[in-house]
């Protein structure tokens, strides 16, 4: 029960075309684990099934779009704990919780923890498939956003601290004169920094820069 599943068709990584999504299944119940794997494979999803959360954590997670189908009540590390644990590891894999009990507080907690869906048994398999597809899509998008952000971040990291400060204030919609006042710089100096920022960040327009700042989450909530 607690051992790693050794079902013959469990390992689906082998037949997947690279770049495809992968579904992680954790369920202590062999039947469930096996039937879910079977289902996902039948719709050309790669599946990685585990008997417990710990087993999954032991392995490296592939850098592909994926989602996690998880029974709330798991032996050892429970579903919610695994969710917390993954969050700590900054692994933003979308989680679809499955529960036979479907109690509200647990669902709320799960959703708050970033679960994408919450399925109560008995659920229709299509619902699960839809959820899985949605989740993987979402993961893919997230991964794309993450990738963009990472790029922006690296650009952002090339900025000097003065430039970064100017960028935050500009992205916040301040006029050059206001920025100069804020930073106690000459307006002209601000213009120079702003030009460098625009250049370094590859922003063609101010709107671009503002969106970049938002993406990076560096929009200073200016008190005004």
């Amino acid at each position, binding site marked *: 029960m607690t051992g790693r599943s050794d079902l013959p068709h469990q390992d689906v990584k082998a037949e997947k075309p690279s770049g495809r999504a992968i579904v992680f299944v954790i369920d202590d119940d062999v*039947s469930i684990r096996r*039937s879910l794997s079977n289902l996902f494979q*039948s*719709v050309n999803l790669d599946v990685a099934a585990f008997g417990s959360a710990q087993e999954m954590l032991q392995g490296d997670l592939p850098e592909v779009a994926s989602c996690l189908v998880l029974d709330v*009540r798991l032996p050892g590390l429970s579903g919610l704990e695994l969710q917390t644990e993954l969050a700590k590891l900054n692994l933003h894999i979308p989680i679809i919780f499955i529960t036979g*009990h479907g109690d509200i507080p647990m669902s709320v907690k799960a959703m708050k923890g970033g679960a994408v869906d919450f399925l109560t048994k008995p659920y229709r398999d299509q619902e699960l498939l839809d959820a899985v597809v949605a989740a993987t899509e979402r993961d893919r998008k997230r991964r794309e956003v993450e990738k963009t952000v990472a790029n922006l971040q690296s650009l952002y990291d090339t900025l000097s601290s003065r430039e970064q400060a100017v960028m935050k204030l500009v992205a916040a919609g301040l006029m050059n004169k206001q920025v100069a006042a804020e930073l106690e710089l000459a307006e002209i100096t601000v213009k120079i920094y702003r030009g460098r920022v625009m250049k370094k960040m590859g922003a063609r327009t101010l709107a671009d820069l503002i969106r970049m700042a938002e993406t990076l989450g560096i929009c200073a909530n200016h008190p005004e």
Partner: protein
Amino acid sequence: MILVFSLMGSLIASAMLFVFPFAVLAYFFAPPPFNLRIDNPQTLPVIVAFVVVSIVGKHLIEKVRRERNVALEAAARLRRGEAELRDREKQWREIFEHNPVMHFMVNATGMVLNVNTFGATQLGYAPSELVGHSVLKVFLEEDRPFVRERVGLCIETVGQSHTWEIQKIRKDGSVLWVRENAKAMQWAEDKLVVLIACEDITERKRTETALRRSEAHLAQAQELSRTGSFGWNVATGEVYWSKETFRIFQYDPSTKPTPQLVVDRTHPEDRAAVRETIDRAFQNEEDFEHEYRLLMPDGSVKHLHALARAIRTASGDIEFVGAVTDITAAKQAEQQLRRSEAYLAEAQHLSHTGSWSWDVHRREFVYRSAENDRLFGFDPQEALSIETIRSRIHPDDLPRLQEVPRQAIEDKGGHFEYDFRILLPDGAIRRIHSVAHAVVGSDGKVSELIGTHMDVTEQHAARERLERALAALRESEQRFRDYAETASDWLWETGPDHRITRISEHTSAAILTTKVVGLLRWEIAHDVETEPEKWRQHRATIDARLPFRDFIYRTVTQMGSTIYVRTSGKPFFDADGNFLGYRGVSTDITATIRADQAERELRKAQAELAHVTRVTTLGELTTSIAHEINQPLAAIVTNGEACLGWLGRETPDLSAARRSVEWIIEDGIRASEVIRRIRALAKKGEIEMVPLDVNDIVKEVIALVTRELVSHQVSLRTELTPALPLILGDRVQLQQVITNLVMNGIEAMQTVSDRPRELVIRSSHDDMGRVHLAVADCGVGITEDDADRVFNPFFTTKSSGLGMGLSICRSIVEAHGGSLSIARKQEPGATFQFVLPLHKEVVS
């Protein structure tokens, strides 16, 4: 020459002279006198004849001479008398008249011819009043024939005097004794008269009578008292023995008694003493008294007591006068008495019986036997005061002890008994049973109490022991009677017609309806109609005269309550093999039946309860159970979808589809298995005791509670010893027990957050082959107080739940012959474990 001498009047001289010649002749013509021989035989007759003639001649001569002398004398006297005769006659007349002797002269007819004045006066008559009258007049009527006869005798024997003593009557009627001397004589011509001289002997007669009487009395007294009297004049050697003395010494009364006779008869051993006594008396001239024995010719021994007084006679001699008493009887009696006294004393000692005699007036003991004193602890010499006696009597008994004799004295005699205790100075107590009677004195009052004290201490103790034993026996008997009565077995006998002829008493009245004698068993029973087949078979059995055993039927008691009777019987036959009936025993088994029923009820109730708790547990497990069923169902559905997916591909993946269907089947089976298991738990079935492996049951339970463990984040560790011996048990109930323990363990760990929630199920077996199963949690544990109560029904620490779980578990385990307990351990949590005995058949 002889004749000459004879004439000379001397026979002696003549005889001498007669001898002389022979002497002379012999002298001269030797041989000497002793060799006298007469040479010529012819001369002998001559000599003899001569001698005879000489002697005869001598006698004749002598006789003639004597007669002549007499005649001469008489003549001379006559001559002298004539002269005096006349004077004499006058004198005689005077003498006659005044002689102090009564003289009567009567004729042959008894008529008084003459009487002297004295005689008449003595009789109170004047002579004239008697003369001419019959002399019979002065005699008693009854003596008159005797007088006549005497007078006649005198007449017949004239000249002979006759003497007799007779009574005479005076004129005044008084009587006097006289001694009469009578003689008939020729008076004048041919008339015969009788002369009678009477002497008044009244006084003598009286003395004589008195003496005779006293002699007779003395003799009688001597004879009776076996006392002889004796007299011994020492000086003269004269000895007098009374008749009884002779008798005592067994000498002929004609023997002349001497002191030597006494000594001769004396027992050899006593002779010296007797002789000494006599000698001393003789020398000292003093009284003596001694006892000695006689050895009689027949060898018997007599005991004598002799007492003598030394009396100086008128002549100045010492004379011993005494009495000798045969005290043999007394001596023997004394010996016997002494012996019997010894026996009595011994008997008293042996029987611890003391006898006593109490003088009522003087208020003291007249007699106390030695044993009596021993009982009271008194010194036999000690004079006893009432206080002393009372001090020895147990205070509690004193009032009664005073009352009983008092009552006896009041009742004047009679027999009375009482018990009391003697309190000895050393504190020992003797129990006395006293039997006494009161002796009434001549004054009609009780003078003395005579009784015995018997020491019954031992008997009392023995009796107490006996009583205790008896009490115990009675108790035991009562117990057995109780047993017998409560066991309510009774014996019965039926006759050839199967009617009851006899029934043992104690139960018949109490148990059965009034009269069962004369009834048939099926008339007593109350279940004949409801169970006809049973009775048909029973009647067939007894008709076949076969023994039957443990036949049970129902009836009612007198009180109307239903009872069950179990009866067994055996036919009996007489010597000829004729069937006489049945004998058997019946028992009231109502209680047993009721107990069986009750036990069945109890078992049923227990099973019900177990079932209820089981169902309750199932209720608690609903989510788990739902999960257990939903899991395979969900898998089935999913696999079905997948299967469709595989088939719906452009090139259907048949092998994947097949695999999916196989899994569907597996999961379907799994789901039905869960349902079966749950149904078994929910089932209200009969208990099925079958050989089981506890490990299997544990696995089944785990299957059921897994979800529960998971949902409570409890990890389960199993330490199951393989190849456990089989136990005999009910699978469902044992599952229930283990489930219950597991669920309790999960519950107990609910609040645990600082350590892993781990539940351990451990199975093992011991040397005796018993199977142990422990369920250990690391939960909150059980407090000391609760440990005693957790198995009580309705005990619970949970907010929900019946609290029946452990109670039911324990009854289930105990019904399996095992035990369920809490095992203590150091780490937190609790361990419940049960032990089940080995399945016997497996062992054998």
